């Protein structure tokens, strides 16, 4: 088959658990071009945030992602705490760290399983997911929930941790530690895994930096970058851990980095459990509504190292009881360009694992806003100055992006255009 064929991967495809679309141009088995379309699952969360109180927004933002739910709430409450000038008590910071690392464990174990499945190694998938259950059980005991832990609140955490739970988590971590050693020893050494992952989906250090990759994806390419070290939050300045990096930038490096990060997370959890300070769980005894009544207007950018990489929440307060704007930049959005880069030149057979290699969370990403301007002139200004998200297809005459009128027209066309969609 020498002629070029276009293969659509997605929006619905067995290897994608969520909708995204890749148009792959292939010559035989080799991919010569890749185009990515995302945002099939627009959820309107950022708009909804503007009509809810800060307190309600914690629960709304938690639901951006079913895997890194704690990441979103922590990023958000940290920002709001900064606006309020609250200092979080030590015990609450430690509990936040504990939940964050348990979340990283479950996210990375989930990824390990998915990666195994994508390369047809279903046994690894089943193994990793069984071990993940220990983490899920710990989270459930600790917070009462397996997925949306709802433990963060403005100024602290909502649940305390007792000695019984501490012991139970310690036991599980000891067991998990053995399992992680087993994975570290066996998975990267397995010949078929090497065949499928070595020199596949390579992103060089330079390209990773140029494309602004984050998290394990960037670290596997040798980019030193971890918000936990660069701008410590919660209790990360008080625990001892390594930022794991690798040099090769291929899938094997990402596999290695994520498994080693599992071990680091276990080490952090052990330290947190050992050094857990006594004290209050909340910054103030006042109800959060009372604290929030005194919020000043201002902007804050809150950074957080989610399992997939750096997550940022931009929060703008106008002094009212609802935020003026909350913009969320999830790590998957930052890592998509590396996927397009890595796909070109690889084999069709590598598509699932290259896509899965960044651990994409697709519906989290499907929230990106459209650049909206009041009229054409401000739109052109904004796109020229690069202030708003610029549609890359834009030209000088037509800067891309939409004005509110454009969007209105588009909406009317969509629903009334005789199209039965």
């Amino acid at each position, binding site marked *: *088959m020498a002629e070029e*064929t276009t*293969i*659509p991967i997605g929006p619905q*495809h*067995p*290897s994608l658990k969520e909708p995204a679309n890749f148009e792959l141009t*292939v010559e*035989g*088995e080799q991919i010569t071009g890749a185009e990515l379309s995302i945002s099939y699952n627009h959820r309107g969360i950022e708009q909804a945030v503007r009509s809810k109180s800060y307190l309600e927004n914690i629960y709304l933002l938690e639901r951006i992602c079913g895997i890194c739910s704690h990441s979103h709430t922590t990023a958000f409450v940290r920002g709001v705490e900064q606006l309020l000038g609250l200092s979080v008590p030590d015990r609450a910071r430690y509990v936040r760290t504990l939940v964050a690392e348990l979340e990283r464990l479950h996210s990375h174990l989930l990824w390990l399983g998915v990666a*195994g*499945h*994508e*390369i*047809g*190694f*279903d*046994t*690894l*998938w*089943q*193994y990793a997911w*069984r071990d993940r259950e220990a983490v899920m059980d710990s989270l459930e005991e600790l917070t009462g929930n397996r997925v949306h832990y709802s433990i963060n609140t403005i100024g602290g955490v909502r649940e305390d941790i007792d000695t019984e739970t501490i012991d139970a988590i310690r036991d599980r971590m000891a067991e998990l530690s053995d399992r992680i050693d087993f994975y570290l020893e066996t998975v990267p050494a*397995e010949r*078929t*895994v090497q*065949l*499928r992952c070595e020199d596949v989906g390579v992103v060089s250090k330079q390209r990773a930096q140029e494309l602004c990759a984050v998290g394990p994806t960037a670290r596997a390419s040798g980019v030193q970058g971890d918000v936990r070290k660069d701008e410590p939050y919660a209790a990360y300045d008080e625990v001892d851990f390594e930022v794991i990096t690798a040099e090769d930038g291929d899938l094997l490096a990402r596999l290695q980095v994520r498994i080693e990060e599992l071990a680091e997370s276990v080490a952090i959890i052990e330290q947190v459990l050992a050094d857990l300070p006594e004290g209050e769980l909340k910054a103030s005894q006042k109800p959060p509504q009372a604290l929030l009544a005194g919020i000043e207007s201002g902007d804050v950018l809150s950074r957080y190292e989610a399992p997939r990489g750096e997550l940022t929440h931009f929060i703008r307060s106008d002094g009212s009881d609802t935020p003026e704007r909350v913009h969320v930049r999830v790590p998957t959005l930052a890592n998509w360009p590396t996927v397009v880069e890595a796909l070109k030149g690889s*084999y*069709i*057979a*590598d*598509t*699932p694992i290259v896509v899965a290699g960044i651990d994409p969370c697709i519906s989290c990403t499907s929230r990106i806003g459209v650049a909206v301007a009041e009229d054409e002139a401000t739109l052109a200004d904004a796109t020229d100055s690069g202030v708003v998200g610029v549609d890359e297809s834009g030209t000088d005459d037509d800067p891309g992006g939409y004005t509110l009128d454009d969007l209105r027209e588009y909406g009317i066309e969509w629903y009334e255009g005789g199209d039965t969609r």
Partner: protein
Amino acid sequence: MSLAVELGQSLFYVLVFPGFAFLFGYALVAEYADRKLYARLQNRVGPPAVQPFADFLKLLSKESIVPEDAEGTIFEAAPIVALAGVLTPILYVPIWSVEAVFAFQGDLIVVLFLLTIPSFALIFGGWHSRNAFGQVGTVRTLTQLFGYEIPFFLACLAPAVAAGTWSVSGIASFVGTRPLYIPVFAIGFAVALLSLQAKLERIPFDVPEAETELVTGPLVEYSGRKLALFRLTKDVELVVGAALLSALFLGGPYPAGAIADVGSTAGAVIGFGVFLVKTLAIVFVLTVLRAVLARLRIEQLVSVFYLWLVPLALIQLAVVGVVGTTEVIP
């Protein structure tokens, strides 16, 4: 023997034992054993014993769609041809005694030929489904076919050369009566096992189906009855392939002959028991392979077969030649 009796007996062979009815049952048993062991290796509970049969019935009752763009006749004929292709060779493979139901000089070639039919049926069916995934999968099936068939044939050639016959029954009785030959065929047996795994399109060689890439490839447009037949084909192929390897490399029903007279009822029962043990053992090996490896890419697969398995199969032939001329084994 009158013509009617002879005809009746032949029909019994073809339709009941060891033909369609037996193979159907045993194939489902083998699928169950395969799935259960696979599940246990992955720390799962696995399906109940009737699951393969239930799946088969369920598929039979479902709507069997022919896509609008598909070449209807070829698309519909493919699963039937595939199943017929794998049901026939069992008649030439010894099961309960040294002699297969039908045997003649050269039946080995017929068996090897018949076992390639399901792959070709899959290629024709998949290609004429006119589905992009199906067509890419078909190209992979074809590429893979060239990869595994040659080492498979070469590996099967080794016992044939040693026994000096092209009859599966003849080879089985040669190897069975000289068990010292079994270790001599070790390399060939390994090559044949891996080639069989590729023939069956199972992990690590399930490249054409590759669920996460090609959504089961050539099978993508198949549904209902036709899919049921293709799945049954795979199960039967597993059993027949295992039976063939057991006959060629492990001496078929032997050592049944050493315990009881091969012609007697007791001999037949023991021989049948040995057949079950040997074939299930082969199925188990193939299952373990499936559980502990990741899927290769198509070009990796081809290089594994050409750079490793073909030379190994040739070495096996040389070993057989040396053993044969030096007559170290009586």
